[in-house]
């Protein structure tokens, strides 16, 4: 259990500053200033889902693809 928590925290702290959600959110807000809150919410959901898919995909398949 210790090991899992260790790994979880390591990965979280490694990826979080690079993705930088609060900083990116400010840029995102600058780009969508004219849109309504609902539109922004839908966009945020799509961005979060795509980011999740990209990261999980590159995590699991990345090493395999690079070795091809």
């Amino acid at each position, binding site marked *: 259990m210790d090991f899992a928590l260790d790994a979880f925290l390591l990965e979280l702290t490694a990826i979080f500053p690079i993705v930088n*959600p609060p900083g990116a959110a400010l840029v995102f*807000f600058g780009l969508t200033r004219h849109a309504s809150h609902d539109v922004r919410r839908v966009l945020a959901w799509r961005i979060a889902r795509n980011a999740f898919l990209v990261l999980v995909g590159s995590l699991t398949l990345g090493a395999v693809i690079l070795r091809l």
Partner: protein
Amino acid sequence: MRTGPGTIAVVISLGLSRGSYSSSTDEVVLVLSTICAVLVIAVAIFVCFAYADRVQCLLGAGGTDVAVRLSAFILFCLGIQILWAGGSELLHSVVHSAPPVPAAPPN
């Protein structure tokens, strides 16, 4: 929008470090914890992006500027660290693979 080549590179290197763990239960635990970490980050992305307008109102123009500059600085420091780690690795390998100086022949 936020998972560019830098993020992908870090994540791939994280995934590659998996190979060093021997037992299979350890590996499954590692994969699951990584997916959980990515999930937490995706949730953070969603929350930050969806409520960016409230944060903007809260911080005001000056506060927003400060936040952007601060996060840019943190990212810069991270970049320097990665650069240094890679550079010192490289230098280490170059220095230690240099051929030894030939000994003077005895007279």
